[in-house]
């Protein structure tokens, strides 16, 4: 490779990862809509094991987190680390390996879930061969990312890179520890942990997968793309750094709040609850930082439909990061746990925060990657309102279902007997599940619009070659 071509950013890989991300969004959300239909019409599994709720549900969650989410994070991480380090990607072939190997893991892992291979650990259902493959690809992802930062020609490491870096390091730690297991066969293993320890390790992993992947990773996306979008620097850089360290310190303790009223020691649960409440401070610091950054760039909304997604994602980020700590209070948790409120909470984050900020970023990024205008601003605006309507409908339906369930299965009569049977309660939930199905279809419909819009924007075009700009000597690494 000549010296000249070394000075070009590697953007083809970014575009390819975005294409994979959109594909997995469609596939995994379609699986979600299908299983929500199964909760209304249980016979929709047609007696096929691979179509059953128990197998399609992990396909839905893994497809969204690993397929849609991580592909989007890899794409935006690779894009932004080059721009903020002023160098092309380190080891671009390794980056391509990460891109395709990851998609292969998601594809084969998804098929293994349909075949019934599962560890039964939430968000970590994939069996040991996939766990090893994930660890290898993840380390490669880290080598590319940190190698690029190590090669940087600009002295400061921008805040988005701290979040992406935390994502890579912490997820590696969580994944490897939680996946420690003794294989019994190619498709079955047994966890190295047992009983309450297994539960604590699992939710240390599970909650921090939400924390460092679905929150921290996407905050990296926010901190790079929101200022680019708004054409303004971040409102308070100092606040963003304080929020990062407070977030990193407090999140890692919060996992056991998933285990209230279990055999886990009470001090562990209390600590988790206190840390969950403390977590509100860095979460909202970031939200305020984002809102204040965009507040002075209102004129951009006239021409940029993508910015609406990011603005609204901040509102849902505020909701989800308030709702979570509130649900960690034992007096709320005793009613809300094991109800559909939890599902609503997860989706206020996943649809309102993760999906919306990713959609906003894709609408911003894809036209720039191929040097073309977005095919249809009108379709993007329609998508925005569909995404908002779908998310709101979903949350309200699950709030209604959750509160009803919580009240019904804790209701006792005068002599302390349970007033209602579990079966009766669940059969009365059908109307809420029908509403949720409609909400999911609206949201999925919007995602299809985006896929079509981006396809027409990209069709027949190659990525634009972008040369690495010179660094101001005042902030260069040799300064």
């Amino acid at each position, binding site marked *: 490779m000549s010296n000249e071509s070394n000075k070009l950013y590697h953007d083809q890989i970014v575009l390819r990862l975005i294409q994979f991300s959109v594909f997995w969004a469609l596939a995994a959300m379609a699986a979600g809509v299908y299983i929500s239909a199964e909760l209304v019409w249980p016979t929709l599994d047609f007696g096929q094991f691979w179509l059953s709720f128990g197998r399609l549900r992990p396909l839905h969650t893994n497809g969204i987190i690993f397929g849609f989410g991580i592909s989007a994070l890899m794409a935006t991480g690779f894009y932004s680390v080059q721009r903020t380090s002023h160098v092309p990607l380190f080891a671009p072939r390794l980056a391509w390996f990460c891109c395709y190997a990851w998609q292969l893991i998601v594809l084969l892992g998804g098929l293994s879930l349909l075949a019934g291979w599962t560890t039964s650990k939430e968000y970590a259902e994939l069996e040991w061969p996939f766990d090893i493959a994930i660890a290898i690809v993840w380390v490669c992802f880290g080598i590319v990312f940190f190698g690029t930062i190590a090669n940087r020609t600009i002295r400061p490491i921008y805040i988005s890179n701290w979040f992406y870096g935390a994502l890579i390091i912490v997820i590696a730690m969580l994944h490897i520890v939680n996946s420690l297991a003794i294989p019994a066969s190619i498709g079955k293993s047994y966890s190295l942990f047992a009983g309450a320890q297994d539960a604590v390790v699992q939710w240390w992993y599970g909650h921090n997968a939400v924390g460092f992947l679905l929150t921290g990773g996407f905050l990296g996306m926010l901190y790079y793309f929101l200022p680019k979008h708004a054409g303004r620097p971040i409102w308070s850089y100092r606040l963003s750094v304080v929020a990062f360290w407070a977030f990193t310190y407090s999140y890692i303790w919060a996992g056991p709040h998933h285990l209230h009223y279990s055999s886990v020691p009470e001090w562990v649960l209390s600590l988790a609850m206190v840390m969950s409440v403390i977590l509100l401070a860095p979460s909202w610091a970031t*939200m305020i930082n984002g*809102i*204040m950054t*965009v*507040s002075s760039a*209102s*004129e*951009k*909304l*006239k021409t940029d439909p993508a910015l*609406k997604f990011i*603005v*609204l994602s*901040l*509102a*849902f980020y*505020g*909701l989800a990061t*308030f*709702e979570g700590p*509130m*649900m960690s*209070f034992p*007096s*709320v948790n*005793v*009613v*809300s746990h094991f109800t559909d*409120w939890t599902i609503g909470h997860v989706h*206020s984050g996943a649809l309102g925060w993760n999906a919306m900020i990713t959609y906003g970023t894709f609408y911003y990024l894809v036209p720039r990657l191929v040097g073309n205008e977005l095919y249809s601003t009108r379709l993007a605006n329609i998508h925005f309102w569909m995404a908002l*309507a779908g998310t*709101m*409908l979903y949350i*309200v*339906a699950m*709030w*209604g279902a959750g*509160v*009803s369930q*919580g*009240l*019904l299965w*804790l*209701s*006792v*009569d005068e002599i*302390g007997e*349970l*007033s*209602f049977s579990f079966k*009766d*309660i669940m059969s*009365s*939930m059908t*109307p*809420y599940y029908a*509403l949720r199905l409609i909400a999911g279809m609206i949201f999925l419909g919007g995602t299809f619009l985006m896929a079509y819009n981006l396809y027409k924007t990209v069709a027949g075009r190659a990525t634009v070659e972008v040369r690495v700009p010179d660094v101001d000597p005042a902030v260069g690494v040799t300064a």
Partner: protein
Amino acid sequence: MSTNIYSFLLFKSLYQPMEAFRQLSESEPSPSGVLFRYSIWLLILPPAFSLIGAANFGWRLGAAEPLMLSRQALILVSAGYFVVLLFGLLSTSIISRWMASTYDASTALGRHVALITIVGEPLAVGSLAHLFPDVFVNILIIIPTMIWSMYLLYKGLPIALGITSEKGMLMASSLVGWLLVAAVSLLGISMMLWTLGVGPLLGV
């Protein structure tokens, strides 16, 4: 002018909301005037309907038997409902005024109280559904009224506060964030009260 705006807000804002926003943009009513001559009448509706509906029919949560509460508990719950709504209106109005300086909007508190009341008016009227206290029926009615309220917020805020629609969109989205948090807080507080023994008899 002030008398006109109060009577307009009370009687016509429901079916002429855009005209109400426009009139509001041309006046600076006092916060207490708006509260006592307009908002308070709407705030009374949901707890009153809830009290009447639950006392006569009991809340239907989906199971066969409705949840019947004692008269004393119902009065307590309805009084709490009113206090929470009042707190919600005032806190949202104050937060809206706090946000206004960021978006170069009017900071007259009376305008913010009136704006939030007009936005919440469909929900207050929609609380007629509480007369038939079935949770799912109430949700079915709340969803379209909530959509209408959000439409009023996004459309009416820039008119009432005299800012561009783009700045209005940003400020309305920030308020949506606050309102979502307020809504989920209401759920959380309710659950805490239930587990403390206020309301339905729970085995906790």
